[in-house]
């Protein structure tokens, strides 16, 4: 069974660890990066099915990473979900406008909720790429 790959770009160790483990237990392959540039490299090399992108990142701000991702034809189609701490409208708006598909406010949700959201994401009709990815893995499963 091919697992869905997720690249998690989050600088806080604790949060990264917890979320990462929850995702793994939910059946995702998780690759973690702790800085913007790292995240970009990782995304490009791993070409995951989803990128979870924190904004406040050292070395390169999340938006920068997002912009770079969207420039690269190899990775520009990979769905991106922004992880924000405070749910600032501006950040959300900006992120979406830069090409992010969705956003999550970390402080407002339990980690389980976030994992559920990601799961839903892949089933959601409105994200055909995600869905397709899921189907791929499932076919492969079968």
């Amino acid at each position: 069974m091919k697992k869905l790959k997720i690249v998690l770009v989050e600088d806080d160790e604790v949060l990264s660890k917890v979320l990462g483990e929850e995702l793994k237990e939910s059946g995702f392959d998780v690759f973690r990066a702790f800085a913007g540039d790292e995240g970009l490299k990782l995304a490009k090399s791993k070409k995951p099915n989803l990128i979870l992108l924190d904004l406040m990142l050292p070395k390169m701000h999340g938006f920068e990473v997002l912009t770079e991702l969207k420039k690269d034809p190899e990775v520009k189609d990979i769905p991106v979900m922004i992880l924000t701490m405070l749910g600032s409208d501006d950040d959300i708006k900006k992120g979406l406008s830069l090409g992010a598909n969705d956003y999550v406010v970390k402080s407002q949700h339990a980690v389980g909720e976030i994992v559920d959201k990601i799961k839903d994401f892949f089933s959601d009709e409105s994200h055909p790429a995600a869905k397709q990815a899921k189907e791929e893995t499932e076919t492969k499963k079968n």
Partner: protein
Amino acid sequence: MKIRTIIILTFVVVGLIGAFYGTTHLYISSVSAIEDNSLGYIEAISESRKNHIKTYLEQNIERLKLINSKTWLRNYLEMYNEKPSEDLKEEMAKILKDAEESVVGFERICIASLDGKIIVSTKNSFLGRDVSGVDFFVSGKSDYGVYFLKEEGVNKIFVSGPLIKDNKLLGVGVAVGALDVLEGIVRDRVGLGETGEFWVAVTGEDEVGEIDFLFERLFEGEALIGEENEGIAGPMKRALVGERGVYKKILDYRGEEVVAVSDFLEIGGLGLVTKADRDEVLGKATGKVFGVAVIVVILVMLLVLVSSFFVSGIIIKPFLKIQRAIEIIEGGDLDYKIDIKTKNEAGDIAQAFNKMTDSLKESRLGVDKKVKKQTREIVKNQKSLEDQQAAILNILEDIAEEKDIISSERDKMDTILQSIGDGVFVVNSQYKIILFNKVASDITGFSIKEVLGKNYKNVLKFIFEKDGSLNDEFIVDAIKKGETQEMKNHTLLVKKDGDKIPVADSSAPIKDKQGNVLGCVVVFRDVTEERKVEKMKSEFVSIASHQLRTPLTGIQWVSERLLKIKGKLSGKEKDYVNDIHISSARLARLVDDLLNVSRIESGKIAIKPEKIDVFEFVESYIGELDPLATKKNIKLVLNKNGEKIEALTDKNALQNIVQSIVSNAMEYTPSGGKVGVSLKKQKNMFLVEVSDTGIGIPKKDQDTIFQKFTRGENAQAVKTDGTGLGLYITQQTVELLGGTIKFVSTEGKGTTFFVELPLKSKPKEGDKGFA
């Protein structure tokens, strides 16, 4: 020219013409009459002279007759004719001589024989002469006659007649005389005046048409003789042919005008012309007549003048009366009547004039009345004008006083203005800067002189930070709307040197007592520092909360995981982990609250209204609380009255509010209690009512319950970890949406909160939402 003058002149001219014409006529006819008269006179003279001459000539004939009748003479002659002899001649001569001496007037008497020879003569010189062809012999044979002939160049009178005896012609007797008697008659001056002349002439012997004047002219002068001329010859010619003539005016031999009468005397065949100078004859008379004419003319003219004066006077009189009347009436006396009673045009005019005066008087009276009335009005107006004037003067005094007050107030104001620490400028309703204080000048870089009187738009540029577009609506709106306006956030002012500095504050309209906007006063300050501080604060808050939240979230998630791990934790361990979870959750809420308070207080919260089905919204939220309600054994009810409430409001804000109140209700209601939520739609608002059967809010705390860090005393007992920020944040949020929050509460019984929110909330700019 005056009428009078015209009349007089007319009279005079007509008079003159008439007089002259008349007198001339008169003169001419007088002269004519005189002429006739004088001619008559001359004629008379001529006649009398003629008779005189005729008588004389007849006398002479009688004398000859007498002589010829002498018997012895005839006898002798008879004898002679039978037998001529000298003796007979001598006898006859003696008789003749006797006769000659006794008869005066003859100077010679002769007898001519039948053959025409002078046989006897008293003078020997004549004897033997042959006179057979001569008139006096030829005619004398039959008749007695007088003849004038020249003898040796001298005119003599010849009388001849037949000597007859027994009807037998014997011979012709001839007597010759000198013309002296005739001359005497001719030269008689009687009746001839000074210039009168009496001409006697016979036809000339030698030539045909020749006139032989018997006597010399009286005066010097050449005779005008000629066929053409009317000289004295003319009349004489006619006289000699037997024509009587009257000549009123002909020229005589002197060239003078004469009056003449011509006549013919058969005896002797004499032409007689009597003439006298016209001047003499007519002169005096005509002179007199002329004199009379002149006098007449003068008299007539005088008469004319006098009458013309008189007549013109009469004609003029009414005019003068009218003139006088006009003067009097002009002078003001409208009662004056012209006194002309004559029944003519003057009378008519006077009547008409008087009528006119009357109507003039009436209308004048009318006008007078009007004038009086108007005058009264004017006086009235004047009075009121004077009153007004007095009032105005009073006002002016008041104004002067006020001015002084204003002046001193203004000075005060100036002083204050200059000492205010903020920039202040005032624009009038035409947007011209009328006041500009020192701080404004310092901030903007423009000197006060540079900006005063100018339209602010030309000098001060307020722009949006974002795009540099003009952002001075706060000034325009203050004036247009008459309401205080805040400068929008992120307003920049462009200084004189082009630098842009952030400014803030407000503009307020300046109104007069009637509420008319006269201008607006703008207060602004350089908020560069403030902004920096704000930014720092904001960043700090952001960063702080971010930094705080990260570990908090970490704690939450880890503890969450721990709790999930099955069987790994013992009951106590589990409890501890739970406590960690709870504590960190509380801490997280506190951090959120603090963040919200910070955001609210900095005014940075954005309100983004969107369409919300309020009922659904509240319903879903309450749905989430069901587990908790069950756990706490509280009856949580959402009253459905079916009405759909669609509101335009901020989701987060609404969530905050509902969450806050409902969770409070849940928190402070003990087990077995009830929390009811109802929604009502009102005119422009919707009402969220949350009532509980909880502990209530003590009266003494009710006034302060919305303040920061205040909690009901009784609440502390129930929930020790409340922050005291909840209701504060809720109230602020409600107010941000434009609503109100109230409550009624009885301690120990319960509380009902009433939140009224507008159906349409106004959006608000801000960069943060609720945490």
